[in-house]
Every structure is written in C-alpha cells, then in structure tokens.
C-alpha cells in the first residue's frame, strides 16, 4: 500500500496534511471535527464536574453552611443541564462516532461533511448561550424544568438556558441524520448490515432515537417560553393549563434520551469485548437486535417517571410492565458480552478494564432501575437519593465508563500516540473505586428517607453523605489523571503503529493516525465482523482477510 509522504519523507496523515487555525475551524474532515468536539465536550464535562464539587462540598454537612439555598439549587440544575445536554448526549456519538463511523464502514467521510462541521458550531453556540445564562445567574428549576415552577415561579434564567438546550438539539439532529445516511449509503462494497461492527448498529439505533425524540423537547421548550413570556396558559393551572402535560412531553423525550446516552456506550463495549478477548462476539444478531429493541421500547416507558404525579393507576401499570420489558434486551446484551469472554483470550489492557467496569456498574444501574419500575417500590423511593444513585450508575458508571474505554481504545488511532500503561490502569481502578464510594451510599440514603435536591438535611443522614463526598474526591482525581496523560501523550507518547491492539476492524487497517481520506483505496469486505480465528496469531492475520502489519510494537512502554 502506498503512503503519501511530505517533502521531508514523513508520512502524511489527517493531522499534518494541513496546518493553521483555519484548517481546523473550517475543516470538513470528520476526524478533525471529532477532535474539535472532544475539546468542546471536555470543557463542558469539567464545568459540570465543578458544579458537582460544589454540591458534594455543601452536602458534607447537614446545615446549609457553604452556599445559599438559591445558589445550591442553581448548582445542581446547571450540573444536570451541562452534563446531560452538553456532555453525555454528544459524548460518544460526536467524538467516537464521528471519528469512527466512516473508518469502520470503509468510507472517506460522513455523507454530509459540511453539516457535520455546522453541527459542531451549533453545539458551541448552544453551549456559549447556556454559559451566558450561567454567567447571568443561572437557572434553578432542576434539569427537569417542571412546570408551573419553571414557567411562573422561578426567578432565574429559565428561557435563556432552555433555549441553549433547544439549540443544542439541532446539533444532535444534524449528527444523527448524517450517521443514518452514511450508514445506509456509504458502506464499503460487501459490507452488508450483518457484517457491520456492533458500534455501528448502536449508533444507528441512537440516531433514530435522536431524530424522533429531539423535536418533542424542542416544542416543549417553546411552550415553556410561550407560557413564561406571553402567559399563554399551557401548563400553569392558574392560566388554565395542566402541569402534568409538561411532564408527559418532557419525559417523552428525556426517557429515550437516557438511551441516547447509553446505547453508544454499549456499542463501544461490544467492540472492546471482542477486541480484548480476540473472539467473535457471542450472539451478534441478538446484540444488534437488542439495540433496536431498546430504541423502540424506550419510547413507550416515559410514564414510569410519573407514577405518583396523579397519573391513573392503570396507566401506571402499563408503563410499569413496558419498563420491565426494556430490561430484557439490556440483560441479553450483558450476558452476550460475558459469554464472549468464555474461552476467549482475555487481555487486561486499560480499555478492557473499563469494559469490565461498565458491565458491572451498568448491571447495578439496570437492576435498580427494575426496582424503580416496580410500582410498589417506587412509592417509597421516587425522587429520593435512590433515584440519584440509580441514574448515576447508568450514566456515569455506564455511559462515561464506556466513553473512557472507547477513548483509551481508539486514542492511538486518533492521535498516533500511546499513553502510559501504568497510569492508565491506575486511573481506571481509581475511577471504579471512587465511583462506587460516591454513589453506593446514595442508595442507602434514598431508602432511609433523603429526598433529592435537598440543600439541608437531617443530621442522621450525615455519615452516608460524608462517604459520598469523600468518594467524589477520589472520583475527581480519577478523572484528572487521564486528562493529564492524554495531553502528555500527544507530544511525548510513543508512536503507535496501525494496529497496536492486534484488533480486527477496518479502522485498524489504515494508518495511525489515518490519512486524510481514511483509506488509500476503498476496501472490499468479504468477511464477518470480529473474525478472530485460532491458529492464526493476531498480528499476522492474513486469514482475517485484512492486511495487518506483521511486526507489532510492544504495547508496554516505559514512562518517560
């Protein structure tokens, strides 16, 4: 395969093919846009994390002694808004999906490169708009914006923040449209649907949810603005509206949004499990089908947020049983991943540590979700710290573990550099321990009687709260370590070859970093995904049908 070289004989790739600010800000290369997104969402993650620091510091004591109640309410609201709309929803699709979908399907780019760049700009405009609202004084409604508090009673920047969320929705929709068209139209010759990596299936399902759900939150936000500004009675009973209508509309989007956050992470984990066990994934079609089943069923369960909001008991029963059904495809995925490990060649590389952490924590998050969907249990734990713990197990233990695992897996592909092995494993363990220390006590707190969104709490809840705050410190340190060594590796990390993990997939069949147009020639695919076979040592896998370089670098590297 011929490589392009520059005048000094260095290999040309997407990072050095062009230089200068303009070459980045006007790029239409999906790989560069992915890196732009990586920078943006990391900033929002850090800001959202800072808010969490404020929350946990305040809750270290039962009295409201660190910040005013009003400030506290703004902290947890902005934490939720920034983390959900500006970090979790875009994280995996906009960074890893953007970077990898064309590479995995053997395409030169996404179907609409300019839309892709536009989506990044829209995301940033939305983000700055929201930060402007924070700078003005923030918003205190909770990320759920429940009416009539948000439309009539709140004295904070509701509309500015909600419009930030509204604008960010367009960036999600553009990304989703781009992915769907790309996956339909731009697969390499021979790459049939059931030969696609499961990462692609997960992103396809996610994109469907984004396109169908996001417009609903958009119109809901407009209705909130109409009531708040123009006093058109939609949600406030004092104006003739119905406050529960808002909850229906909000959760009709926001419950599927949970699957927008977790499905891509599941896609990443499928890739990690296959690559780090070097085994064909067990139950490929079941995992692919489960992604679609979760996407569809996810639209039918919104009412489980409203068992106690005056919804009829019979509606509650329907939503409860449908919520139970969503647990089945989730269980199928978990068991298929574990069955893949059976008689695999299980490596303990950093990405695999994250994958194993994901499965364990997502399982706890999922099973406590089943408890919440059980009507009788929900009476007691609804809107308590039990719920807070549950969704952090799914969102942080699940979605973020998957995101970090994916980032560690594809970092050598994205940057052409390796990161320090010791520190990366150390951070993965710290994050796992810190996470459990932070959020496990919250299950106990919730059942014991602590409502969520409490600034002041009874003194007998303090021990568990202090444990949680201490854990958050550990978790925070855990998140800082990768930030340091990733940045460090871009300059000082050892160079990665095209396939440092000995993994299978079209993305490993091109340079690290990939050339500007991904492949020097478009590959033809006549093999199934994850065709790891015994008697063919990884690294020489001619029989995989893919040219993998014969000499592989030793992945361990001495730091420094």
């Amino acid at each position: 395969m011929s490589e392009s070289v520059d005048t000094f004989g260095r290999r040309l790739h997407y990072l050095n093919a062009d230089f200068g600010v303009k070459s980045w800000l006007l790029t239409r290369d999906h790989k560069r846009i992915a890196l732009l997104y990586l920078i943006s969402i990391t900033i929002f993650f850090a800001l959202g994390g800072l808010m969490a620091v404020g929350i946990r510091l305040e809750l270290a004591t039962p009295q409201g002694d660190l910040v005013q109640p009003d400030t506290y309410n703004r902290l947890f609201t902005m934490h939720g808004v920034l983390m959900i709309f500006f970090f979790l929803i875009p994280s995996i699709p906009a960074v890893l999906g953007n970077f990898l979908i064309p590479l995995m399907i053997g395409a030169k780019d996404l179907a609409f490169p300019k839309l892709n760049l536009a989506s990044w700009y829209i995301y940033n405009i939305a983000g700055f708009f929201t930060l402007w609202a924070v700078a003005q004084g923030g918003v205190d409604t909770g990320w759920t914006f429940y009416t009539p508090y948000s439309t009539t009673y709140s004295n904070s920047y509701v509309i500015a923040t909600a419009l930030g969320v509204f604008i960010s929705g367009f960036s999600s929709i553009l990304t989703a449209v781009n992915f769907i068209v790309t996956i339909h139209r731009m697969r390499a010759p021979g790459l049939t649907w059931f030969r696609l990596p499961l990462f692609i299936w997960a992103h396809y399902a996610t994109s469907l949810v984004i396109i169908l759900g996001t417009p609903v939150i958009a119109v809901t936000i407009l209705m909130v603005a109409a009531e708040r500004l123009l006093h058109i009675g939609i949600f406030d009973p004092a104006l003739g509206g119905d406050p529960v209508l808002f909850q229906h509309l909000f959760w009709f989007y926001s419950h599927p949004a949970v699957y927008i956050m977790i499905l891509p992470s599941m896609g990443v984990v499928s890739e990690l499990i296959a690559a780090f066990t070097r085994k064909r994934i067990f139950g490929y079609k079941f995992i692919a089908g489960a992604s679609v089943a979760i996407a569809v069923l996810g639209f039918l369960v919104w009412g489980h947020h409203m068992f106690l909001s005056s919804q009829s008991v019979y509606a509650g029963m329907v939503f409860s049983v449908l919520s139970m059904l969503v647990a089945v495809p989730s269980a199928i995925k978990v068991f298929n991943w574990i069955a893949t490990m059976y008689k695999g060649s299980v490596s303990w590389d950093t990405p695999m540590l994250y994958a194993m952490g994901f499965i364990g924590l997502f399982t706890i998050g999922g099973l406590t979700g089943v408890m919440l969907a059980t009507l009788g249990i929900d009476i007691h734990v609804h809107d308590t710290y039990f719920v807070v713990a549950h969704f952090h197990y799914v969102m942080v233990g699940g979605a973020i573990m998957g995101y970090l695992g994916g980032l560690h897996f594809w970092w050598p592909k994205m940057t052409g550099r390796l990161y320090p092995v010791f520190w990366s494993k150390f951070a993965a363990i710290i994050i796992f321990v810190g996470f459990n220390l932070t959020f496990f006590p919250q299950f106990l707190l919730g059942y014991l009687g602590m409502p969520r969104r409490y600034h002041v709490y009874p003194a007998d809840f303090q021990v568990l709260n202090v444990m949680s705050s201490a854990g958050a410190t550990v978790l925070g340190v855990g998140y800082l370590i990768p930030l340091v060594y990733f940045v460090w590796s871009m300059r000082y990390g050892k160079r990665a070859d095209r396939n440092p993990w000995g993994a299978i997939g079209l993305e490993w069949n091109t340079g690290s970093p990939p050339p500007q147009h991904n492949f020097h020639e478009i590959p033809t695919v006549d093999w199934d995904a994850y065709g790891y076979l015994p008697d063919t040592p990884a690294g020489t896998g001619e029989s995989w049908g893919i040219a993998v370089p014969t000499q592989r670098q030793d992945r361990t590297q001495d730091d420094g």
Partner: protein
Amino acid sequence: MSIWPEQFPLFPDRATAIARDIDAIYFFGLGVATVFSLLIAGLIVFFAVRYRRTSPDEVGQREQAPAWLELVWSIIPLGILLFMFAWGAQVFFDARRAPADAVEYYVTGKQWMWKFQHPSGNREINELHVPVGVPIKLIMTSEDVIHSFWVPEFRVKMDVLPGRYTDLWFEVDKVGVYRLFCNEYCGVEHSLMGGRVIAMEPADYEEWLGSGQPQTTLTKSGEQLFEEKTCNTCHLGRSFALGPSLNDIFGTEVTFADGSTAIVDENYLRESILDPRARLVQGYQALMPTFQGQVDEEELVLLIDYIKSLSEGTGASSTGN
C-alpha cells in the same frame, strides 16, 4: 437497632402496614439485584482470570458457549420481571386505594409550608396530629407549584399539584413523631418544607383536639359559606331550581350537555365551582358565574366537604329542607 449507633441509621423505621408490604417487595428486588450483580461480577472476574491472555499473539478459542443460552437469559429474566411487576402493582393498588371508612383530612401545600385541616375544624401548619389505628385519607392540593407529601416511616408518598386534588392514605400503628418531607423540588427553600406527623392514641388525640378554642367542623363551616356565597339560591334541590340539586350526587355519575359522563368526585366539584362552564350538566343553562378568585383553597375545601356531606344521608341541612 440497639447495638447500631443511633446517629448512623441505615434503614427507616416502619409505622404502617403498607410499610411492611413495600419493604417485602423491596427486599425481594434487592435480592434479585444482589444475586444477578454478584453472578455477573463473579463471571467477569472468573473468565478474566481463567482465560487471561498468556502471549501477545494469542487468539480466543474456536469453541463458543452454547447458543441455547440466549433463550435461558431471555426467558428467566422476563419471568422474574413479570413477577415483580405483578407483585408491585398489587402493593401499589393497596397503597393507592383508601378504605371506605377513612377519615378525610385536607392538606394544602404552598411555598414552603404545609397547611392541614382536620374534619373537626382544627387547623395546623407543618404539624399534623393523627390518631393511631384509624385509616386517614389526605386530600391534597397546592396553592402554587408542585409539592410532594412523604413520610418515610409510612412508605407513602404522593405529588401535591396546583389546580386539582390528589390523595394519599395511611393508618399509623405506632405512637410516635415522624418526619414529613416535601419530595418534589419546589424552589428556594424546598429542603426546609418539612414538618412532623404526630401519631397519638385516639383518646389523646381527642384531648388534643379539644384543648384549643372550640372549633366549628369543616362541614358546618362549609354550610355557612354555602349560604354566604348564596349557592343555595340555585342549588335548592327543587324541581324548578336553576341549578341541579346537590343532594346525594357525590360518587354518582352525571351526564353532561355533550352526552359524556363522569363520576362526581372532589376534582369535579372543584372544577364546577371554579369553572362551571367547563362541563355543564345536561338540561341546565350556563348561568352560574365562576368563583375563581372568590374562594381560596381552604374555603373551597369547606364547600366541597359540605357538598359531600349532603350525600351521606346523615348530612341533613337547612338547604335540603
């Protein structure tokens, strides 16, 4: 609990029968969650150790786990899930449906306090005295935003909404003082919108009721207000009256001008007082003016309580005669 330090509780006390039912299903759910989490974590660790990669070029073995496992791990979880659903739904029904003989109290939430009205006419703020061993039904509404009434030791909780009534019931079986929380975020002082439920022996409760100044019962006050607002001009219960009779209507089905029907409950009465034209009873003209802004939440409760009393047979009143 005696050995465990009091300042570090891990589990809430139980003070109602429903609490036992909810704890039972909670422990079942917790058991399921624990067993499956340990099973999955155990398998991950076992496979990671047992099949740990020994050389950099090693590839997984050709042999796969048997395919029928897909059925096993679809059907077993589904069975457990449906069982949990059915059990949970049954507990929920019991918790949501108040017994017919429950004594009705009225609750109004507002930023950031709870107001209670006893049937005897006693009023309290942020404290609710109740007798033990008597089923108590709270009929609740909010003057502003959504609140939620929660007493952890009772395991009962219900949102309290503006513009409509929701209800909740409990029967306390242990004398004691229990914490009350607002459980739906309601603004700046949400976490201070709490209070206490004080459960007393019935005799002590009676004594407590009588200890303040003499009270007019809710029904009696409602009757006075009914006359003050001249409701009795039209709702006389005579055939030539301009409005329908209110005797014995509570809990019955009424037919509206468009042919649709509804059961007369607190929410319908509320709507008929505040927005009489929303659903007009068949055969009557839209003559009644709105009382929106003329009666507050507490007065509304009095009117409704009085109208309900007209359906109890014993509620003999001057209007009816």
